[in-house]
């Protein structure tokens, strides 16, 4: 109700910004709590000794999304409504404007049920970036320009490994297809964000090549094999068809060996 009321005034996000600050303060307090309350049954040491060697948990992956909405404004509204419970760290509008909606060291709610390699809590280990895009259009040049600058900063700040720049559709292949197949993953990879393959003309795929295991090694969950193949082809071949082909196997064979 308060949010609706605030939506009519010029500083229309003042109220939700206050909520942001209040919540961050609550989390900061939580970090100072000791001892943890739910530790029943353990013979805890009588005297507490805190360690002096620690830091904040930081992200190890960057997950790229498209908003599947029609405007930045619409996405900002979605992410400032508490009842939606969804968010991302960054929203990049079509004109290249960047909204930094959540501190990098906090956990945004962008991944949903997802898996990459063995990791099942991608929200806790990633930065989420939403690109304003309806899902059926190319990504604007201004948007890509801002994205590359942002990725460069994130990569340096958190030592994010080259292979760990991936898409929402990669970590949730049965549920998601974003960013859509028009997303220029190859350009990202040329800039050091994500892996890519090179010329496959002379590549000979061994007859007994287990392509599903290779897809799993790249990171895809292969419980639903069709979804995994589709996710792989969308990302690495800009192809939205479902069938494994000799050409796709070649690409996969080149790629998976980079994931030792």
């Amino acid at each position, binding site marked *: 109700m308060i949010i609706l009321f605030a939506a009519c005034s010029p500083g229309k996000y003042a109220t*939700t910004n206050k909520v942001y600050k209040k919540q961050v303060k609550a989390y900061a307090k939580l970090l100072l709590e000791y001892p943890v309350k739910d530790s029943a049954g353990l013979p805890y040491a009588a005297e507490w000794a805190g*360690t002096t060697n620690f*830091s*904040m948990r930081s992200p190890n992956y960057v997950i790229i999304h498209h908003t599947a909405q029609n405007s930045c404004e619409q996405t900002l509204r979605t992410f400032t409504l508490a009842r939606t*419970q969804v968010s991302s760290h960054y929203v990049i509008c079509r004109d290249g404007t960047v909204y930094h909606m959540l501190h990098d060291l906090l956990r945004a709610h962008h991944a949903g049920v997802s898996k*990459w390699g063995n990791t099942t809590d991608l929200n806790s280990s990633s930065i989420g970036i939403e690109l304003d895009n309806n899902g059926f259009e190319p990504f604007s040049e201004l948007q890509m320009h801002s994205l590359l*600058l942002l990725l460069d900063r994130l990569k340096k*700040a958190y030592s994010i490994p080259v292979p760990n720049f991936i898409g929402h559709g990669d970590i949730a292949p049965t549920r998601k297809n974003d960013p859509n197949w028009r997303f220029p993953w190859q350009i990202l990879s040329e800039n050091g964000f994500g892996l890519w393959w090179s010329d496959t003309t002379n590549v000979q795929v061994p007859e007994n090549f287990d392509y599903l295991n290779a897809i799993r090694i790249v990171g895809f*969950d292969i419980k639903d094999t069709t979804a995994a193949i589709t996710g792989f082809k969308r990302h690495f071949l800009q192809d939205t068809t479902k069938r494994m082909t000799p050409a796709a196997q070649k690409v996969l064979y080149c790629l998976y060996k980079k994931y030792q």
Partner: protein
Amino acid sequence: MQKGSVLPGKDSSEIADEKKLLVPGLGSLLAKFGRANELYSAMVDSLSRVLFRYPLIDSAGLTYSAEWIGTPNMGLRRPNYVIIHHTANNSCEETLQEFTTTGGREASAHYVICKDGTVHHMLNDLLCSHHAGESKWGNNTDLNSSSIGIELVNNGSEPFTEEQINSLAILLERLKAAYKIPDAHFIGHADIAPTRKVDPSSKFPWQTLSDKGFGLWWDDTTVVQVPDNFDYLMGLRIIGYGISNPDAAVAAFKRHFMADNSRAMNAQVRKIIYVLYRKFE
């Protein structure tokens, strides 16, 4: 994160310098931990304040929006793995001393479990302790940021005590429930750093833990037929091991899943890898 990381916030030695809190090498136990504990609080406070900053300082070159809009849909980053270590020393005291010393290795763990079963909870679960070092599991290269570290006091060649394993099991139960840690994600330090580490030693009761729901295990393999084209290195990689050094990966696998300290690859090892890797879809 290692010392000197680019993460915002001060590291412990900076704060210690500012507050002239030099942790004494010796001295009474009480005074020693008293100072370390003061430093702990000061550091958490400093890290928390980092979260209040907006906009970030190092965002040069980006077209930021004129008006800042925060989202209320957030949380703290949580652990997804539990990494078990042995301390490779002789007493709890030595470990506590090391983890409360600034400068040097700056190592830590969330929990230290002494031989008598006493648990020292040295760091809030939601913060990042420095226990993993350079490591990798699947595609994850920052295990410190995504795990809870538990150190068992053990010299590396002796069995773990019953009291220790009892406390460990209770602790794991709590962690699993609190952070929804998947069964497969209870692993050892050597699993994530097979070229550098051997802990916990082959005497660690992984099978007992697995029976309680912490970590995966294999069953009777007598009737298992391994397909001819099964690539065991792919199998190891899917379980999570880094395979850039295949010998080290095999050695770590055998230590963990066969309580065997040798490196030789054979049909039985291949069978067990085969049985296990299929649980890691």
